[in-house]
């Protein structure tokens, strides 16, 4: 059972046979690379979660009476500050627009402990590396008189909810 080396190396194939062999080689290569790419992509699809388990983006924060005029109250877990001036109410994000630390309240507005960004009372950047002002979120009154904040909807800064 001697092995025919000539046959293995394709030395005596016809023009057609050699062509067929090259095509098969290409197809195998494309198939392997293609499946590799496909499986890599599907792995990423797999690890990209469809549901997230964090804080809800829409939530109620209580009745208007809980926030008397003049209030600036930070709600830590929800990462917002609730502002009430007279009969107007608004919710501003306390997530720093730089890299996501929580900004603290101070006399002039907000200050971030991580890289020193500063914001005025309305959330406009007054210093530091933050690239954008703090977003204002949509606030509405539910039929049963509760205040609902919707963090998925960013509104024009300075637009308050009239109570």
């Amino acid at each position, binding site marked *: 059972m001697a092995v025919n080396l000539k046959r293995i190396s394709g030395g005596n194939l016809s023009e057609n046979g050699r062509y067929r062999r090259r095509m098969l080689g290409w197809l195998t290569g494309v198939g392997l690379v293609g499946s590799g790419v496909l499986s890599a992509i599907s792995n*990423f699809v797999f*690890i*990209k*979660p469809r549901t*997230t*388990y*964090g*804080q809800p983006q829409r939530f109620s924060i209580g009745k208007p009476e809980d926030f008397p005029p003049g209030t600036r109250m930070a709600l*830590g*877990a929800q990462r917002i500050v609730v502002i009430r001036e007279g009969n107007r109410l608004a919710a501003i994000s306390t997530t720093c627009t*730089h*890299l*996501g*630390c*929580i900004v*603290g309240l101070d006399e002039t507005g907000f*200050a*971030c*402990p*991580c*890289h*020193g960004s500063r914001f005025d009372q309305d959330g406009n950047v007054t210093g*530091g*590396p933050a*690239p954008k002002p703090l977003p204002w979120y949509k606030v509405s009154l539910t039929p049963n008189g509760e205040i609902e904040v919707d963090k998925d909807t960013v509104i024009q800064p300075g637009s308050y909810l009239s109570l």
Partner: protein
Amino acid sequence: MSPNKTSQPSLWKSLVELPRNVWGSIFRNPLPSNDLERSATSFTNFFLHIHPVKVHKHSLRPWYTLGLGLISFFLFVILVVTGILLMFYYVPSTTQAYDRMLDLRGTVAFGMFLRNMHRWSAHGMVAVVFMHMCRVFFTGSYKKPREFNWVLGVILFLLTLFMSFTGYLLPWDQLAFWAITVGTAIAGYAPVIGKDIQFLLMGGTSVGQEALLRFYVLHVAVLPAILTLFIAFHFWRIRKDGGLSRPAEADAIPTLEFPEASTNLEPRRTYGVQGLVRGPLHAAGKVPDNTVFSWPNLFRAELFVFVVTVSAILILALLFNAPLEEPVNVMHPPNPAKAPWYFLGLQEMVSYSAFWGGIGVPGLFVFLLFITPYIDRGTEGVGRWFARERLLANTIFLTFVIVNIVFVIIGTFFRGPNWTFVTPW
């Protein structure tokens, strides 16, 4: 069956010879007493066969490599061993992780000690890998044919940083939480895919249980596996690139500078394929032999570096405890919220601009590191520290190193609450 009297020893004889035969079946060679056995030792022992049979004398000079690559490797080994032990107690859950840290500290036998070892080896590995990169640069060792091993090295450096970044979240203390909040947000600034990367890393929109689990999987399985693969590749390339870099003079006949070079001319390729390293094969015939046997010369040196590395980590772990901050409070970042020291240069840079400091400039640095060997292609001054011929390249790299160190120092000592400038004295 053909009767063969001599091939079947009696049972009694087998039992008597059992210990010696078992031993002999594992270690095929006796402790070497001649050159043939010395070379056999290197390539019949699984754990030693990664080594060449003979090494160049120049590679054994302690002040040439400073053993830094080896130390990086041994630190990685310590990290794997201590890390696996820590896994017996750790739970990647936001409600349990911190308590497990307290348990390690308070109740588990040697728990605190192992955690200390793991932490100090991790810090050490970042520092030593960086120093190893500096030594490779300043000796011009990334030049042809070692360009690709330098590229592998840069990948190893990035993997090492990513290992420590993922490990940082696991204690689930204040430092962990805020450093990772900031770190993942930096990823979010990368162009096009930034937001997706951030979302994939965190498994959600903020750092929480999903992020902890993901970082755990990356830290204990994915990254160590990739790192192991690349270290193996790195080592294999060292062999295939002809051993460590050395100046051309080191292969010549003895000079004042290399008196140890041998006058004793030997034919090339004496020790078979296993011992062969790439060299001018066309120069057949007799050439000066400047190599020595790996057994015992190289192995003795490696053992020495190993013992020193392990001892240093043991002593550090005895003297200093790994820090553990307050448990996570998602409402209040500590002020200032500082990353570990090796990321403070980055943190200092992002305090000027998130994109440029976190993505643009570091990305440019990494890109420059990758292409260095393909740009700086002169062959002068290879194998010598701070060779005069490489003054320009070395000066540029030194500037890069110093700038990095200065930024780390500013971030570490000169930044106080709200990241304002403070003086440490």
